[in-house]
């Protein structure tokens, strides 16, 4: 249980955030650069002093301006993986890994050295100096170092930001499995939709120093506030789905989701895997009758749950067992005579859902096998 309430004025910038995260494995702090994400985790770690507020982790109060509690960083037991790694250049990898471990009382250690080294695949690097590591290796060591101090919460500040695409893809599964493997919840700072879709259970949406929305990833990402934040994209819907079968012949995969079965371009993940699928509202068409003779593969019976017009467009919220957003013109809305409660059909083109709209997100994170250590780069 993570309970955070923070206020701070820094020059002309004011920070004002409040959120609780209960039972989430990974909570993402999402927002554009300069929205105050890093400041928040610095305050949680005790590296920056808030003007007022409260930080508690699992009922243990780390900071409370009213009662004057303010534990120094060294006594907070909060792990921190920095964007740039920040390894100790004068220690070997082993020295880096054991630094925090040695400072943790033996009875409070619950993360084992051998297990971390094995899971992160850094056994071959133990005697090297940080200067001799590649970017991806540095971040693995940084993650291991933070974990080995047996923290009650792990903060990660865009740990993949400095890595190229291939290294990112390689590290993502590691991060995804950390909470269940090592029993440490993560507060993850990111401005990447893909990373959030892939990793997070809950999402705090940040905007100019404020937490403007908070909830499950599916809920927050499907609300209009999110779309205005994530770079002016259309409204999107995020649904949780599971792979039913692969249709090799037609090049499609069939996914079960609360609204029925949706067909998407063929995936490589195994049957049964859980996924998150993002559907742009602009890719959802509406029809009053079930259409025939159309190329569109995904047709769902639905009901209008809400209408909201903005900038000459209408955001139609549909109910098909789960919410789905469709964005149409005002003219189209008038022609169809849409009203709340009206039954209709929603059409989603398979090809409109690209690979980047689909993210593996397994609630149990059990199916992930660590990949071998990358070559020295």
């Amino acid at each position: 249980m993570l309970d955070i309430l923070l206020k701070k004025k820094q020059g002309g910038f004011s920070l004002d955030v409040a959120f609780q995260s209960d039972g989430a494995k990974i909570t993402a702090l999402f927002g554009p650069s300069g929205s105050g994400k890093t400041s928040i985790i610095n305050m949680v770690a005790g590296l920056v002093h808030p003007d007022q507020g409260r930080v508690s982790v699992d009922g243990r109060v780390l900071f409370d301006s009213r009662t004057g509690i303010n534990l120094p960083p060294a006594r907070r037991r909060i792990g921190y993986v920095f964007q740039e790694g920040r390894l100790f250049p004068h220690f070997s990898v082993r020295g880096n890994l054991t630094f925090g471990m040695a400072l943790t009382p033996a009875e409070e250690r619950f993360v084992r050295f051998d297990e971390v080294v094995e899971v992160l695949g850094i056994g071959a690097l133990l005697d090297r100096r940080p200067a001799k590591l590649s970017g991806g290796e540095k971040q693995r060591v940084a993650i291991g170092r933070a974990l080995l101090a047996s923290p009650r919460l792990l903060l990660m500040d865009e740990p993949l930001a400095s890595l190229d695409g291939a290294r990112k893809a390689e590290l993502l599964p590691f991060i995804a499995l950390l909470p269940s493997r090592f029993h440490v919840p993560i507060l993850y700072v990111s401005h990447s939709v893909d990373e959030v879709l892939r990793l997070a259970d809950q999402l705090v949406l940040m905007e100019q120093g404020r937490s403007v929305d908070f909830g499950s990833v599916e809920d927050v990402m499907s609300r209009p506030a999110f779309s205005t934040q994530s770079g002016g994209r259309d409204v999107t819907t995020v649904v949780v789905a599971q792979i039913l079968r692969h249709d090799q012949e037609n090049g499609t995969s069939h996914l079960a989701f609360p609204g029925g079965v949706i067909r998407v371009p063929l995936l490589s993940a195994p049957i049964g895997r859980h996924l998150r699928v993002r559907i742009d509202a602009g890719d959802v068409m509406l029809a009053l009758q079930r259409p025939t003779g159309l190329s569109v593969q995904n047709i769902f019976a639905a009901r209008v749950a809400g209408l909201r017009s903005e900038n000459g467009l209408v955001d139609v919220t549909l109910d098909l067992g789960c919410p789905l957003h469709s964005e149409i013109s005002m003219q189209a809305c008038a022609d169809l005579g849409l009203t709340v409660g009206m039954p209709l059909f929603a059409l989603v083109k398979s090809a409109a859902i690209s690979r980047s709209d689909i993210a593996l997100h397994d609630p149990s994170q059990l199916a992930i096998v660590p990949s071998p250590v990358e070559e020295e780069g």
Partner: protein
Amino acid sequence: MFTLTPLEVEALRLSLWVSGWAVVASLPCGVFCAWLLARRQFPGKSLVDGVIHLPLVLPPVVVGYALLVLFGRRGVIGAWLYDVLGITLAFNWKGAALASAVISFPLMVRAIRLSLENVDQGIEAAAATLGAGPFRVFFTVTLPLAMPGVLAGIILAFARSLSEFGATITFVSNIPGETRTLPLALYALTQVPGGEAPAFRLCVISVLIALATLVISDALSRRIDRRLRG
């Protein structure tokens, strides 16, 4: 070849002894002052900075006279030291070490301060999140990372101490075997007739020692640099 006369050996031995003690004794204080100036903001900081740097710009004779007034047997501090601890600094090698330490102190502080300022405070923060308190962070992260500068400070201060003359002769005079270091011995030789040849020999010894100091420090700093870079 070059064989040293007993007088030369004595002056050389004394020089190294006095300079060594000057550096060793002032190092903890130098590191502390450097840290204070590099990392702390407090009222009167520029005044403290100025006082530390004063020996660099004052005539050494002024420093020597001030030491005599303060640390002489009847000086404010000197009298107390003698009465309470039984320590005398005036006219012995300890006083010579004090004079050298004071004169070389600003050089030591400047070098250490510079390297402390260059230590990435993000790495110190990382150590803190791993459970290290401020003292542990300083001794396991900050100081090792600032080692090249600390070494530079030690060498600079040592070299400056070897060449110290004005403050030493004013404070502790020119006593053979007690305060007559290389520069003072050289000065004494230039004051007597027929001293040119021995004086020249002392010049050569001074140059060789200075050169050796610089070469050794260069090799050491290279080695530390390699260690830090991995």
